């Protein structure tokens, strides 16, 4: 399982961080940081919420 994000679409609003703070973090510069090591099966629900809740459709969850 992997999170793919589209840098051009992301505007750093941060809703993903609200759903899964261990995985998503907006940095000081407003750009999204993804903590890939925290993308785990137990977090699938929260990750799906983050993907679905993204205001700019910048996130995708892909099975690896």
């Amino acid at each position, binding site marked *: 399982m992997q999170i793919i994000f589209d840098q051009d679409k992301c505007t*750093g*609003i*941060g*809703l993903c*961080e*609200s759903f899964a*703070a261990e995985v998503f*973090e*907006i*940095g*000081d*510069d*407003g750009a999204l940081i993804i903590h890939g090591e925290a993308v785990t099966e137990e977090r699938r629900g929260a990750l799906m919420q983050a993907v679905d*809740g993204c*205001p700019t459709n910048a996130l995708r969850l892909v099975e690896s």
Partner: protein
Amino acid sequence: MTPSRLVVVGSSLAGLRAAEAARRNGFTGTVTMIGAEDHLPYDKPPLSKAFLDADDRPTPVYRDRESLAELGIDLVLGEPATGLDTEVRSVQVGVREIPYDALVIATGARARSLPALEGHAGVHTLRTLDDAVAVRSAVSDGAHAVVIGAGFIGSEVASSARGRGLATTVVEASDTPLARAIGEEMGAVCARLHPAHGTALRTGVTAVGAEGDGRVERVVLSDGSTVDADLVVVGVGAVPDTDWLADSGVTADDGVLADATLATGVPGVYAAGDAVRWHNDLFDETMRLENWTSAAEQGALAARNALDPAAATPYSTVPYFWSDWYGVRIQFAGVARADEVVVVDGDVDAHRFVALYRRGDRLVGALTLARPTEIMKYRALIARRADWAEALEFAAARAEAAAARC
């Protein structure tokens, strides 16, 4: 009875999310979405922000017609719902009757207009895509912009107009802008962004008329002065679109009244988005929000609850919104009515800081300017009802960590 017909009234974010959620949850009945505008559902926040910054910015449509058809969403666009009969369970759209088993009301809010300025070309509100296209074209051709109302939408428009070189004036009736949204103290701090970027800010005055031959040329203010204008944008708030519910049995009072599960009390009828005033358990308050985040979440939940009322779950949230002025991102989480507001990190004069809102011994709100990495961390604290001491401790640790990074 298992519902087989879901009708969603409203085709903006809350309505779209309601329709999508029904399908995502495996609902196989009919889904009909009714929208007053001709346009397919589109994203509103960019309309007063990036959309105005350049003439070639694309229309922020969520899904194309094919994708909506694939989801099995029937569209009834271009005409508003005109009535609701909750006895026979049917929505009226002009002469059409659209029957439902489950209904989600997501008609949103319309821009409040200013009668004193009506009748002149060049005077706009900004709520819909058509509004935004008209404002953008006026910004592109104009030289003098006057924005009535220093709220978030008005301030965003002023920021865009100024950024495109227009002489820009913001006229605000109250002495302190944004007092209700973020409190008086921080409202004043944000308002200073206008003069800092060359936009004139006139507070404590109202617009009482417009002058010009057909087209607006000047706005007349309550102190007798005038401001040159070839573009006027009125941003004085929005009114929930609930007139169509008169005599339906659904109660509206500055929004459709709903309980914590977004139920209106009328069987099968739920409400979401800017049009609903619901009970937010997290703050034990009834509130009506006009923000993207809650519209999206309420839309999805209202549909799920409407289709399975026996398993209905409450919607509680830490309200969250963002705004972009002159390249400064403003973010607010929580509620602004507070006993005290404390700046815990950064520099207010540099418009880069974190401020926290205390009510009793609880953290209830957080405001950040140009500190995007901080806001969601405080939103999480507010969500778990953190007390004030814990919030200050957390803030001190964050400030220390930030200083170490520098």
